[in-house]
């Protein structure tokens, strides 16, 4: 348990007033304060964008890294120290754009990291261009009318399920209780956990607003969705119109990446010392 006051951010938050990210950081603090993890064993890896600033607004080990690359960086962190719970905070701009390949491969690898996607449909920090999750026809500075964004959005939930992620959920920044519960499960999940977090950008996105989501979101769990049914999860991921499902789409238990790596039986790989006699024996075997 980490006392919530110890998680107080080091820096003053620079997000816009009313930003959906406030709900995410509040939920993260609450989730961590309720989980049984040592403070030093939590790491946040963030990408670049408004979501990338999470490490500065919560007191945790962190790397504020590159646009689209947080997932492979987090994979390296996890592999060499399995005691760490590695949380990735990224945006739709970075992870569904440059990072989409890494996202898919991390899912099939089932690497034990929790990816929290701050999804607002725009590249906010670069001042409002359409992101890979913007709907077709979305009008922005780089997708002027007609026709607006000339392509359909990425379906991150569907891709995660199809790709092999073993915990897939969608949450809404405006539903704190559900967001906290989902974050807790994702952080403790023994495999690749992905949470698509709907999060209005109040400055740039005039379509995907608080009102838009409040009117449409509904809980999958309240409708007794079967989270072990992969096809059902994919089907639900395609529902994004008058009704938008939130909650857990899919969960399963299967071997994670680390079980296929040559990690020490006990302890952390980072502390392991190679047996030099073993290496010398290997060399001596090569001598003719």
């Amino acid at each position, binding site marked *: 348990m980490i006392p919530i006051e110890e998680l107080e951010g*080091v*820096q003053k938050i620079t997000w816009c007033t009313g930003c959906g990210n406030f709900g995410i950081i509040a939920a993260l603090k609450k989730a961590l304060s309720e989980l049984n993890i040592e*403070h*030093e*064993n939590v*790491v946040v*890896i963030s990408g*670049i964008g408004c979501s990338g*600033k999470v*490490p*500065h607004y919560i*007191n*945790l*080990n*962190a*790397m*504020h*890294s*590159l646009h689209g*690359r947080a997932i*492979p*960086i*987090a*994979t*390296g*962190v*996890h*592999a*060499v*120290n399995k*005691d*760490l719970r590695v949380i990735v905070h990224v945006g739709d701009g970075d992870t569904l754009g440059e990072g989409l*390949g*890494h996202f898919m*491969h991390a899912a099939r690898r089932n690497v034990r990291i929790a990816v929290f996607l701050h999804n607002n449909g725009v590249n906010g920090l670069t001042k409002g261009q359409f992101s890979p999750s913007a709907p077709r026809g979305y009008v922005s500075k780089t997708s002027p009318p007609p026709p607006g964004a000339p392509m359909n959005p990425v379906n991150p939930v569907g891709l995660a399920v199809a790709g092999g992620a073993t915990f897939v959920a969608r949450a809404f920044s405006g539903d704190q209780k559900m967001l906290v519960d989902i974050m807790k499960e994702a952080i403790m999940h023994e495999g690749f956990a992905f949470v698509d977090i709907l999060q209005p950008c109040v400055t740039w996105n005039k379509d995907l607003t608080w009102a838009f989501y409040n009117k449409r979101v509904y809980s999958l769990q309240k409708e007794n969705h079967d989270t072990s049914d992969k096809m059902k999860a994919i089907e639900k991921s395609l529902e994004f119109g008058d009704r938008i499902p939130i909650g857990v789409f899919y969960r399963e238990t299967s071997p994670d*990446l680390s079980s296929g*790596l*040559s*990690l*020490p039986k006990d302890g*952390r*790989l*980072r*502390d*392991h*010392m*190679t*047996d*030099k006699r*073993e*290496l*010398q024996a*290997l*060399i*001596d075997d*090569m*001598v*003719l």
Partner: protein
Amino acid sequence: MDLSFNIGGAAGQGIDTIGDLLTQVFVKAGFYTFTIKDYESRIRGGYNFTQVRVSDRPVFAPADEIDVIVALTLEGAVNPRKQLVKGGVIILDESVEIEDREPCHFSAPLEKTAKEIGGSDKMTNAAALGALLSVLNFPFSLLEESLRGIFQKKGDKVVTSNVAVAKALYDLTSEKFKGTCKTSLSSIEKGPCKDRLIMTGNTAIALGAMAANVKWASAYPMSPSTGMFQDIITNAQRLTIGALQPEDEIAAMCMAVGASYAGARSIVATSGGGFCLKVESLGLAAMTETPIVIYEAQRPGPSTGLPTRTEQGDLLFVAFASQGEFPRIMIAPKDPVEAFETAGRAFNLAEYFQVPVIIMGDQFMAESSMNIPRLDVTKIQVDRGKLEPPETQGLCLRYRLTDDGISPRSFPGDKGKIVVANGNLHFENGHITEDAGVRKAMVEKFLKKVPGIRAAMRPPTLYGKKNAKTTLLTWGSSWGAVYEAMSTLAGRHVSVNQLHYCDVYPPKTELLRDIIEKGARVISVEGNATSQFASLVRMESGLTVETHVNKYDGRPLTRGWVLSKLKEVGVA
């Protein structure tokens, strides 16, 4: 004695294994060997060859001339024909049909005998060996002794059938080969060489990294670096090393940066094209001061270029890659012995200075092999540099400003500590800022590392006599051929020596300055078209090298080629 053999045929015919066995026999018999593998970027067919050079004195480069050719295809006989010495022999498998038959040709039932006597076409290597050594009058007793030593671990049956196949071809060749071979080794005895470890640059780097306690290796397959990664991952379980082939070059590098941030020594392997993709995260490693070792085995570019060939063409690219300005270290080992030691040293330098260290190899260095003394892992020591003491608690000053620019490291998971790394401009505690004063201080932090790095770089090595009239300037894998050429010239009383760099960036230039100021003529010899190292030296020191010798056909330098080029510029 200085003999060379060319085993040629199509990809997939086992050219490599014939060459390997031939090398092993001579190593076992006490000789120095140098073996290169020349192959096309295809899985089957084409023309591939292995060239084995054998001598009773150390040899460091491929040969210009061939004494005996073994051909499993027509190309194997025709392509190296012009390199064959007068009085050389071409042994062809009897399946090869050749129209212009010459007295030096000898058709032998290599594959047929392998199948009939050895029971498998895999024994073709023993058959080829028997024929080749028979042509040379190499004593069969010595061949048999070597074969027994090589195969003893595999059991009696393997020993017996290899010896039987070799013997069959040896006898058949003695009986049927009516041509002449200029070389006879009939009176040969055991050679003087005690070095029994046949080693490539790739494997030596892997072993050096493992001796240096590398705990994370990630790489995407890319010739010619792949062998290094394969050597690590093959032994990952035995030595407990995290190793993974991820989806791409970018992920490989990002994983290694993450692993290093979390406290493990990490390495990636790639070639120039992969390094292009890694440049983004090279910058991240630099900005976050995360130590990383990158093995860049060069091949001719740009783009895919010549994927299985060699060049020293990426030096300036690697020296300047990434936006922004930051310190880095580049080391270019000349041979497997130096590669082993360099790989060990690279991790210490990376962790001490908290900068990227790039090991500059190339296809020639990576995949050519020579027999070297047993590598001693105790020679590689681990120094992890400045670490934050356990007493420090809470948010660490990961980027604390110090006199030498180096801040103590700590890792996520360290008891009671919080460690923040940041690819954005950051305060000493790692948190983000855009402050002009902090920017200036953090840039100066980088600059402060440079004198320490310069001091840690090894000076170049001078080979040959001091105060020669001509100095040949080389770096990395060009050493061997130039050293042999220099030695040949020195033997002819030409006043020439060689100044060779392993630590290429930042280069130590005092000795070079001294040589130039004393009036020597300096000639750079590089495996590229634009004399990149000479340019780098000029940029770093203002010293100008006036004469350049360049090889950029994708093939390694040889003594003969260097001599002919030096003659063109008046050194002979």
